[in-house]
């Protein structure tokens, strides 16, 4: 009759893939980081990471440079809004899909092409 440990008597969720499945397919726009303007990328030191902090789905890594996991990024745009150096811009998913040149990129990254 199931576990009765305290941990399971409340609802815990940790950052990572969630109930929505591969939520990257929901995206209408995708965030793209301009490394010329991104503070940690430019300085090569562990600073800023505002995008990592604000991402509601924890899909941006705390690395140099920060990397966005497009398999789960829903394209909400909060990172682009919060980035203090305006290094992140939201581009139309349809354009991103064309830039990716082909279906392979589509199937691994899950963008929504405009058919």
């Amino acid at each position, binding site marked *: *009759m*199931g576990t009765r440990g305290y941990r399971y008597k*409340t*609802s815990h969720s940790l950052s990572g893939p969630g109930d929505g499945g591969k939520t990257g397919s929901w995206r209408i726009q995708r965030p793209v980081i301009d490394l010329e303007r991104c503070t940690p990328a430019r300085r090569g030191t562990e600073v800023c990471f505002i995008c990592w902090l604000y991402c509601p789905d924890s899909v941006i890594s705390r690395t140099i440079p920060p990397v966005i996991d497009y398999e789960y990024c829903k394209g909400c745009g909060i990172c682009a809004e919060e980035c203090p150096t305006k290094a992140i811009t939201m581009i139309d998913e349809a354009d991103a899909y064309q830039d990716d040149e082909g279906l392979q990129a589509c199937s691994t990254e899950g963008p929504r092409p405009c058919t």
Partner: protein
Amino acid sequence: MHIIEDGNAAAALGVKLAGAQVIAAYPITPQTPLTEKLSEFIESGEMKAQYVPVESEHSALAACIAASSTGARAFTATSANGLLYMHEQIHWAAGARLPIVMCVVNRAVGAPWNIWNDHQDSISQRDTGWIQMYACDHQQIIDGVLKAFALAEAVSIPVMLCYDGYLLSHTYMPFEVPEEEKIARFLKPFAPAYALDPDDPANLNTVTLPDVRVDVNGETAHGYMEIRYLLQEDHRAALTVAQEIEDRFTEVFGRGDDALLEPYRCEDAEYVVVGLGSLTYQLHDVVDTLRAEGFKIGVLGVRLYRPFPSEALAEALTGVQEVIVIEKALSYGYEGALCSDLKAALCGRQPTVTGMIAGIGGREIRTADLTDTLRAHVRGAPDEDPGWIGIRL
């Protein structure tokens, strides 16, 4: 005229047609589309009312209390934690005997956070002194708003019209929109027994002593206990008034039936399932299936939960072998509140009462599961059955 809309739209149309004059509400899922619709009606001039934007549900009901005290027809709506945030004002509105109408779009209460349907929110408010009606479909929502205002104003007690979040609030189905000329015959303009008047100032519901007192006119005024006794007296009388209003509604609109209970195939039933809201309509199909298999079973929907139709229930269930109550809420530490209420109403009578829980936090109640559970139960269910339909522990 019939239209196809969702349950929130049915409620909003009902409030507009009832001529509510003051709306104060704070948005919360799944109630939000209802208040949005009302603010659109007012903004476009389609509805002549004052919309009071507020910063919380507590303020929403406070604004309705103030508006109703001045003699305005007031309406609010909420769900779940929003309803709980109102709690202190909910008691106040009933004690102040203000005929406010509130739609409760039933939703589970956190924690854990959950936006889906069950009845824990409104059931937890059953002892506040409000009348509680439960709707099973959109016709009962839109007609229910009109009946709720009529009842509230007739007995000076506020009314909650409860309907299932998502299952009704976001589901589309056809319903008939009451005609305005018939509404004018059914629901007269609000004529308050007392209204605040700046030219004749008074304090309402200030400190009231435990004992009776002599007022400024030298007359004996009630103490707190007498005032509360009269709330109870009028609540019980509201059972009769609700049926009178239902009869008047039927006379004007040609639809409506029983204000208290809604039986289906109960005539010769050995087993009767009792519940609240849309679940009781889903049970119609379950009863049809089980009847076809030879089981003598029926379903009885409780449309008016407070005041509790104890006598009508006892009468309706006399001769029945067993009553099975299926609820979407419970009094933690004991059992479902409706089950306890029903046991009390049937005390000393024939039917045994069994309680079951279903659909907590929006857990889907599959019609096949309901059928299987009830079939197994009437055949003699195994002892280890937890009584929670669909539990997957």
